[in-house]
């Protein structure tokens, strides 16, 4: 691990992105726009007194899901390009360590994700008056960890795609089941045993659980930290798997 090479990689990935204004706009603006749509979707719901708005539940979870989905897509395509254009093979003939590359990517996209979730969280709080008990800083923290998870999965999945078209097809395989089973649509304790067991091993589940903790408690609970630790551990594990897909020598 060489800190300078990692930083050089982060800087390189960010400057690649900087030339791509459209992607930056998509990353920063789209989540806020979708959040707006969700707000107006539930605008006219009639609630018994004391029951929280659906927006406070669904909007909050979306704040965690956006960075996961977006960073998964951005990373898997970027890494696939790196693999197919020959730059990866070339890099692996230099002294750079695989971890410098992977963490370089991780840091770059996590920075983007932090920006993205700051924008989306600000919109949720200030424009639509998101009403939860916990502090917004925790929401941003969970969003960033989710982004790292998306980056790790993207780096890993890019090894199994040969074209960008295939890479995009991993989204329904890897991302959609997690969204379905994370507790957004049906509470996890009301799923059948099989689905609940699957949802127990899907990383996104832990971020939704963490957000529910933030929504219900003013201070960070130990369950929140357990969820955060689980997500961080899974992300690191997937990054290690991704490192194994980077081969200096091919057969």
């Amino acid at each position, binding site marked *: 691990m060489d800190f300078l090479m990692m930083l050089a990689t982060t800087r*390189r990935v960010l400057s690649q992105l900087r030339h791509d204004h459209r992607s930056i706009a998509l990353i920063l603006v789209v989540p806020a726009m979708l959040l707006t749509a969700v707000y107006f979707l539930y605008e006219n719901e009639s609630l018994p007194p004391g029951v929280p708005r659906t927006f406070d539940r669904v909007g909050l979870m979306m704040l965690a899901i956006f960075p996961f989905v977006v960073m998964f897509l951005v990373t898997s395509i970027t890494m696939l390009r790196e693999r197919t254009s020959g730059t990866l093979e070339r890099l*692996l003939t230099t002294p750079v360590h695989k971890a410098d590359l992977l963490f370089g990517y991780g840091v770059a996209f996590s920075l983007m994700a932090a920006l993205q979730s700051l924008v989306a969280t600000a919109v949720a709080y200030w424009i639509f008056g998101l009403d939860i008990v916990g502090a917004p800083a925790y929401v941003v923290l969970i969003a960033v960890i989710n982004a790292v998870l998306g980056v790790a999965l993207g780096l890993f999945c890019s090894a199994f795609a040969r074209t960008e078209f295939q890479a995009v097809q991993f989204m329904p395989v890897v991302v959609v089941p997690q969204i379905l089973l994370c507790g957004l649509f049906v509470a996890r304790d009301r799923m059948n045993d099989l689905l609940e067991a699957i949802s127990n091993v899907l990383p996104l589940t832990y971020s939704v659980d963490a957000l529910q903790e933030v929504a219900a408690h003013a201070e960070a609970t130990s369950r929140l930290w357990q969820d955060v630790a689980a997500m961080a551990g899974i992300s690191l594990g997937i990054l290690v798997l991704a490192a194994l897909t980077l081969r200096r*020598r091919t057969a």
Partner: protein
Amino acid sequence: MSHLAAPLGTARGQDAAAVAASALRVNLGRRPVLLGVDFSIPAGGITGLLGPSGSGKTTLMRTIVGAQRIAGGTVEVLGLPAGTAALRRQVGYVTQSPSVYPDLTVEANVRYFGAMHRKGKTDVAEAIAAVGLEPLARRKTADLSGGQVNRVSLACALVAHPRLLVLDEPTVGLDPVLRADLWERFRAMARAGTTLLVSSHVMEEASRCDTLLLLREGRLLAQLTPAELSRRGHSSNLEQAFLAMIQAADHAGTAVEPETAESARRDGRLH
């Protein structure tokens, strides 16, 4: 760069081989591509790797830079087995299709690959100047012409000041002026002590090399100088000479043994 010479254990001078292969066999998947190749590339000169497309040139180069697993035999680079971690600091590789980032500027590309070798601003500026791209340094690589992108890719290797530079068809798609210019640069680098291995399927470029490795269908047809090639192939046109050698080899039987000019002269097969 005082750490370069000592730890690799190769004596400096003409007789130390930069690359030495012995009975080298390489498969791509299950397909055998190199079928037992022996050669030795002297340090500090330009060695041309020539042969029809599909003869195994790129595979041989990828093996030397450590990107390709070998199936048998040995290949040593600067005194160490190819692919050894210490060699990553010493060996530069320029792939056939330019492997650079199109969405970065020329400078950002060279800076990034330089950073992988802990090289700073001066080296970056030098490398860009060496390929004549100073006026375009701040342009996005995607906006450059094909030949210019090739030169960006070359600069990304030069920035590391490698002792061995492996170039896969570096002059493809370049106009004659640029091509001549690039060969002058290769010559200057060789004079300064760099070992260059340059592949080409344009036989006319062979005359610019010190030594030639002639590869055909995964076997080494011969290792010789351009002068020896034209003598053994009975033509001053190196392409004709190469074709004549291939025909002679086919005539001599299926098992083509690499041979020196001396041994060929002794048994008189080519005369």
